[in-house]
Structures are given as structure tokens and as C-alpha cells.
């Protein structure tokens, strides 16, 4: 009967900062390929909206701190691995100019069970939003403005401490 004897495939952590868009289906398929110990895939996509704080947003430019950003994301991922039993962590964050409906960020967490994958995915987003050096500048009908940090993002990150 012992039909399936796939070797345990080790998980990986992958962090990318890029101007190019990403393909959610392809990213998830690549993580999962050949790993039959994955039972749960939790993922999150952050998307550029056409409205923020009551104003129309025509486009958005995302700036980052090259080097420190990748380092911060690697650290956030390592922190998640210390808290939960996970298989893969993927974080892809775009920089540059984006329009409403454009994808901004992707976080995918795979694991044996759903509770840990969900928790880690939300934790990664909450930490990324408060600890990774990215900044958004929006174009609105009144001109361009730097997006202000939000108190509820700080509160979301503090839940995990």
C-alpha cells in the first residue's frame, strides 16, 4: 500500500523587492511544487485602491531603503519562524509607480496546518507595515502627498508582542 513515500521537502524563506508585478498563482505553485507535507497555504495581497482617507488616488509611488528593506523583511520572516511551525515564507513587495488595482505586496505562508499559516501570514503583514522601510506617495486631486503612518497599523503590530 505504501504508495507515497515522497521525501520531506524543506521549506524556504524568500524575500523580494521589485518593480515588476507578480503572479500569485505561479508564486504559490512554485512554493508548493513537490512538497506533500504542505496542508495549508495562507496568502495575502495588498492592492492599490482608488480612494484613501476620503480622496481619489490617481497613482502612487513606493520608495524604499535598498538593503535595509530586504534585511528588515528577512528579520520579520525569521521572527515568524520562531513563533510558529511553518514550511515556506514568501514576501514580495513592489516599489515604483503603481495605479489603482495594481498589486503592491504578496505574503504567502505554507505549513502543515491552517492555524499557524493564518497567524504567521497576518503577523508578517502587520510587522511589514510598521517595520519595513517603505514609503508611499499618492497623487490626489489636490496634488501629491506622503501617506501618513496609521495608528491602527501600530496597534495591529503591537498585538503580537
Amino acid at each position, binding site marked *: 500500500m505504501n504508495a507515497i513515500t515522497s521525501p520531506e521537502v524543506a521549506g524556504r524563506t524568500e524575500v523580494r523587492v521589485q518593480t515588476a508585478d507578480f503572479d500569485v498563482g505561479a508564486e504559490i505553485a512554485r512554493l508548493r511544487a513537490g512538497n506533500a507535507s504542505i496542508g495549508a497555504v495562507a496568502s495575502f495581497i495588498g492592492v492599490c485602491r482608488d480612494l484613501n482617507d476620503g480622496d481619489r488616488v490617481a497613482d502612487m509611488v513606493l520608495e524604499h*531603503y535598498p538593503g535595509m528593506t530586504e534585511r528588515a523583511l528577512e528579520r520579520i520572516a525569521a521572527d515568524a519562524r520562531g513563533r510558529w511551525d511553518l514550511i515556506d515564507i514568501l514576501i514580495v513587495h513592489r516599489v515604483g509607480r503603481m495605479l489603482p488595482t495594481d498589486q503592491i*505586496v504578496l505574503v504567502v505562508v505554507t505549513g502543515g496546518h491552517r492555524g499557524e499559516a493564518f497567524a504567521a501570514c497576518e503577523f508578517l503583514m502587520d510587522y511589514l*507595515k510598521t517595520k*519595513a522601510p517603505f514609503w*508611499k506617495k499618492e497623487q490626489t486631486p489636490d496634488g501629491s502627498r*506622503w501617506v501618513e503612518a496609521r495608528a491602527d497599523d501600530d496597534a495591529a503590530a503591537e498585538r503580537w508582542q
Partner: protein
Amino acid sequence: MLNVLYFARLRESFGLDTERLDLPADVGDVAALTALLRARGDAWERELAPNRSWRVAVNQDMAHPDTPVRDGDEVAFFPPVTGG
């Protein structure tokens, strides 16, 4: 020499994204370096005023006012982050 970087709103306000800075002997931590920059007046005084919100990283790690600053360090000033 320090390598000092500015990002986002601070970069625009200062009209500067990076500079090489000779480290005076009496500047040994982030608080002293911030005071030195604030003393330039204008946008520097305004953006780095105690009632504004900004962050400092030393060698790409988040820093505090008493984080040491040494010759050769990379120090970055930026607003609270807004990614995701």
C-alpha cells in the same frame, strides 16, 4: 566620515538623498547627530523638531537616541514607514 541617507518626505524637504559627513568629536550617538543636523535651520530644524515623527537607522538597524554613531557608519533618517 559618516554616510547619511534621507528618505521620502525628509529627502524632499532637505533636497538631499545622501551626504558624507565628518563626524565631530563630540557627536557620539543618534541624539547628538540629530541635534547637529537640526542646527542647520530651515527644513532641518522643522522636520527634526521634537514634535515631528521620524525614525533613524544605524547600519540598517532601527536605532534609538542613545544608539552609538561611529566613523564609517551608515545612518538613515526617514518618516514612519507606510508600506504594504
